């Protein structure tokens, strides 16, 4: 089968779905966070492949921004998780249920 945009998109979306699964199934905050990175990366892959197949560099610029933003987000997120861990001695989502209902 000839490899075209469709294949790339399928891969990228599968990756996205994997990330999604990770987010909703794993209970360790850090792993969840990694899964989120996976999802962002899937978007990057989609953008790059579109960029390639549509003959348009804007997509790559977007990827650039996404990577930057993701980095910022990761740093803040990790800092937050660390701060939380210091308070709670846990990075487990089930321990984060003081507020509910």
């Amino acid at each position, binding site marked *: 089968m*000839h*490899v*075209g*945009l*469709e*294949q*790339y*998109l399928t*891969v990228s*979306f*599968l*990756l996205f*779905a*994997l*990330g*999604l*699964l*990770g987010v*909703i*199934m*794993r*209970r*360790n905050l*850090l*792993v969840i966070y*990694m*899964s989120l*990175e*996976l999802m962002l*990366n899937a978007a*990057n*892959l989609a953008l*790059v492949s579109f*960029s*390639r*197949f*549509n*003959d348009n*560099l*804007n997509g790559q*610029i977007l*990827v*650039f*921004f996404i*990577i*930057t933003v*993701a*980095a*910022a987000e*990761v*740093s*803040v997120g*990790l*800092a937050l*998780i*660390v*701060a939380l*861990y210091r308070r709670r001695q846990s*990075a487990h989502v*089930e321990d984060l249920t003081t507020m509910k209902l």
Partner: protein
Amino acid sequence: MENFQNLISETMLPDMMFYVFAALTLLFGVLVVANPFSRNPVTSAMFLVLTIISMAGLFVLLHAFFLAAVQVIVYAGAVMVLFLFVIMLLDLKEEQHRKIKMVAIIAGLLSVGTIVAIFLKSLHATNLNAHASPVTEGDTALLGKLLFSQYVLPFEVVSVLLLVAMVGVILLSKKNLK
């Protein structure tokens, strides 16, 4: 033989490479989120690195060389190191085997499955109008030009964002509160 090589370089090889990298990416991806052997976050992190590197391979196949490099440097290099650093810092043990809720897993699989199914269905239903012969090269110079001309505004905004993130990280992780 030459013909064959040509054939590979022209069509077959990139295709084959695609399948290889795609398979690797997905495999590592699965291992990130659902490693049947280990639930240790470190393992997940390591597989995430591998996923990202495989993906960089796909980027190369798509002629986005600059981004492939950035991907490896920023993600595999910086971000993942940060992750690992934090994991080590927090001294996270292997995730305890709390009881797994089958219902939750099935429901999760079902909903994600629905989304995937709809996506794939839509993908097949859509004529993507993709060019037969992709030509765009990941020209770094061109990218740079675009970034500093057309996209200078978002670029500046992102710089503010980074500043904010920096401040935030410091505030959040400062050891002693005043």
